[in-house]
């Protein structure tokens, strides 16, 4: 695992597609949001959204195979935090990735709903030449941004 900090990019993290790495993602997202002066409430919501995005990669893009990798980048553009999550799995069917109706009480399928509820904007696409998938999520910083 590699992590580095720079003035524009708060974090670039390459991690294996393993569930037991999610705890590290949460710690680092929390720290990055604090660094960007997000409120405590927003910080915790961002942790939830990014954790769910990484879970989706592990469960759906890599189908539970822990041999894959994902790269999480967090950028502070002054007013917003941008979260970019890349994986290198088979391109997913973009039409199948959508939030479900919550009136339907059943296990699963909540991750995209969480992302939609928490983020101001999100977009899922494919990397060039079918190399994988990229999810970009944006959220306005609600505190005193740097």
């Amino acid at each position, binding site marked *: 695992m590699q992590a580095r900090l720079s003035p524009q990019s708060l974090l670039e993290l390459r991690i294996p597609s393993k*569930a*037991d790495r*999610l*705890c590290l993602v*949460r710690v680092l997202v929390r720290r990055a949001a604090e660094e960007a002066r997000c409120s405590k409430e927003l910080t*915790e*919501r961002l*942790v*939830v959204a990014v*954790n*769910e995005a990484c*879970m989706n990669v*592990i*469960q759906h893009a890599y189908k539970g195979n822990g041999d894959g990798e994902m790269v999480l980048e967090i950028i502070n553009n002054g007013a917003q935090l941008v979260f970019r999550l890349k994986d290198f799995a088979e391109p997913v069917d973009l039409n199948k990735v959508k939030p479900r109706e*919550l009136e339907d*009480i*059943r*296990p*699963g399928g*909540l*991750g995209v*709903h*969480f992302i939609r*509820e*928490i983020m101001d904007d999100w977009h899922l696409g494919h990397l060039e030449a079918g190399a994988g998938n990229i999810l970009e999520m944006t959220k306005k910083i609600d505190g005193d941004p740097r």
Partner: protein
Amino acid sequence: MATPAEGAWADSSRDGTWGMKYKTKEEGGYSVLELEGDVDLSCSPDARKQILQCLEKGRHLLVDLSAVSYIDSSGVASLVEGYQTAKKRALKFGLVGVSIAAMNVLQLARLDKVFPIHSSVAERLQADG
């Protein structure tokens, strides 16, 4: 993972530092499953297993979330499955002592109005009459 003796903590975390611990006890006609720590994708299968095991024994079940510091959608899915399984078997199911972190996620999922939630086991028993 083996089921721990009643009242003993079992560790579902990878190295004992991060992750979830759980234990069960019997109180007022309920099995009470206490979860502690982060209930995420790495250990929610254990939470699910414990919940379903209690229900398979025909026990009413309360899940104590007072010491849960984080729960993700896979942990929430385990609770939903427990809720539905209990309903099918005509067993009582509920959540008690839900931590702020867990409540925030349940509210995001609009499940805070679906699960029976009480502040403590004692309050639930009182509500049962």
